[in-house]
């Protein structure tokens, strides 16, 4: 899958909000791409555009099906769409509001099958539902119940089962574990990883939690005000961030170890209004390395090392602080 210059505007009477502007990245099969950013940076909107839950303003999502020619997922016609939609599925943020309270769990998981394979026999459907439910660790004997009888972690498993029942290739996980307790979070993350290995899934993992993203992702993209400001392999990004925003974001994460003294880089103020973004580099109002050039010209999003993309004028010169993997590993022991 390849995402090119994806843009989404929300026009209103007075102003136009550029929720996502010109985001591009590649997704290889079997990979996990993490997308991080503060609330309001457009990461959810981007995820929804990718699955075509909302129409994008411009740009393309090139999808390479298992067989046949690559297609632009955003412009294909209805018939083709129907065929390909089962390949790309989504897991939603809130397991409490994304399940219909009036449907039993069996029906919830079965619904995508009914929509996509109306001719499938009832028995076959039941069988598939049971199969997938067992796979995600749901107790099969409880499936006739309604969602309210399940806990948060169980509900999220239902959501995962629903996304998986069509045997998709790509799953967009929008804050899939954010609403869960830490111990349940660990269970769900482990489950997602196991399923990935088993079914050769590709994840686009959207989250604001950097530690979860670091754990699960092969590559990570950082978004700020609708733009991708940095994109690189996980290790490269966390050991040697190139964008000041990434550096500040990483320093703000509390580490579960009182021995590590945090040297926080204060990020003053808040995310500016996306309807009226600052001139030049969007981040210059909060950047501690800001120079005159940043206020005037928008930086180019470019490849600075192989596979490491960044949008900052001074990416080459700045020596930004990341995590030193070896050092922290020693401390841990």
């Amino acid at each position, binding site marked *: 899958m390849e995402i090119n210059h994806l843009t989404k505007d929300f026009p209103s009477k007075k102003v136009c909000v550029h929720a996502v502007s010109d985001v591009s990245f590649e997704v290889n099969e079997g990979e996990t791409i993490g997308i991080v950013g503060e609330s309001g940076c457009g990461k959810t909107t981007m995820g929804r555009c990718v699955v075509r839950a909302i129409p994008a303003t411009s740009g393309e999502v090139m999808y390479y099906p298992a067989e046949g020619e690559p297609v632009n997922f955003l412009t294909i016609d209805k018939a083709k769409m129907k065929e390909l939609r089962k390949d790309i599925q989504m897991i939603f943020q809130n397991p409490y509001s994304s399940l219909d309270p009036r449907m039993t769990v069996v029906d919830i998981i079965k619904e995508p099958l009914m929509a996509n394979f109306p001719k499938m026999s009832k028995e076959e459907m039941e069988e598939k539902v049971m199969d997938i439910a067992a796979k995600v660790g749901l107790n099969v004997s409880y499936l006739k119940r309604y969602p309210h009888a399940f806990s948060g972690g169980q509900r999220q498993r239902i959501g995962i089962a629903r996304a998986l029942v069509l045997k998709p290739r790509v799953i967009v996980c929008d804050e899939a574990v954010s609403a869960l307790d830490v111990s349940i979070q*660990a269970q769900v993350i482990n489950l997602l990883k196991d399923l990935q290995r088993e079914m050769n899934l590709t994840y686009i993992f959207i989250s604001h939690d950097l530690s*979860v993203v670091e754990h699960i992702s092969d590559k990570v993209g950082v978004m700020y005000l609708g733009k991708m400001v940095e994109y690189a392999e996980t290790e490269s990004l966390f050991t040697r961030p190139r964008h000041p925003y990434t550096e500040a974001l*990483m320093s703000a994460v*509390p580490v579960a170890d009182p021995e590590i003294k945090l040297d926080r880089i*204060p990020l003053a103020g*808040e995310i500016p209004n996306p309807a009226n973004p600052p001139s030049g580099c969007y981040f210059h109002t909060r950047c501690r390395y800001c120079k005159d050039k940043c206020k005037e010209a928008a930086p180019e999003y470019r490849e600075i090392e192989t596979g490491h993309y960044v949008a900052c004028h001074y990416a080459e010169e700045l020596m930004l602080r990341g995590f030193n993997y070896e050092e922290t590993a020693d401390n841990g022991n």
Partner: protein
Amino acid sequence: MSEKIEKSSQQDLILDVRDLKINIELDEGTLTAVRGVNFSIRKGETLGLVGESGCGKSLTSKAILGINDKKCKTTGEIIFDTNDHGMMNLLDLKPKGKEIREVRGKQISMVFQEPMVAFSPLYTIGNQINECTRLHITKDKKKSKEISLEMMKKVGIANAEKRYDQYPHEFSGGMLQRALIAMALVCNPKLLIADEPTTALDVTIQAQILELMKELQKDLNMAILFITHDLGTVAAMCDRVAVMYLGKIVEIAPVKDIYANPMHPYTQGLIGSVHKIGTKNQERLFSIEGTVPLALNLPPGCGFYDRCHKRIEGVCNVKEPELTEMSDGHMVACHACAGGCKGCSQGVQTTENRKGEEEDV
């Protein structure tokens, strides 16, 4: 010498919760939400209360202020060092009486989880902060506005004069949380209860708010009861940590101890299930099997029995473990750690080994 310290620490005690129990009567039976909680807080100290949702941490904190629902039957003692009357059991006071009102909001105040929900949308921010000052400090409107404005500036709300007359919907989440903190601190409380104050916020804003709380704590010399499920913020904020599970404190220790040497299997699981950022650990996270059971008709024995990987049959499911002191200030409620039975001295051994190592260093 040691006597002196003990005495002074006794005097420094600001809150002492003893054997707090909260039962809720439901149609299905009695929900034992909090089952005998003991802890104390000293002046200027931050105690973290950690646990998963449903473990009773919020009920405990609300019981201190006496703002729980009528259905909650609360027993035990909550001793608080009041300004006028000295040590007083807050549970003896009428929940709507004059005395508790003197304490609530003035000497103990609370920062709630969801800043968007905690404010009334119908009144201006200034009006709502003012409410507290007018009740507790001064009836003079001008003066109370002055105090409120000063507090708003202190918590870092820029343009306080203009912000004073704005409504909650005009504030962003981070700013609103600052306003909520201003409202809680405006009467200079001795104890601040912060119930997941940063859970709803972004990491960058969270870092700002935590720094702010630390600074204000130093300035005002207040104690904080910090309730959260995020072990990262606990490490950054607290002096001591109490881990709660199913309405009981299972482990309480100084913050460094609990991360370096967690003893209770539940604490170990909690710490193990968080991916430590900056460590290249791509392996599976440690996860605690199962979920927190509902506190209805609990079987005898340890509440963690079903999920525990160190459980001892015939011991853990028969008798409930008591909090016992393992080392200085480190208390654990676990049979497997206590080493009082055969084949379970593992926990104790490892701690002894670690101690030995530390001494060697």
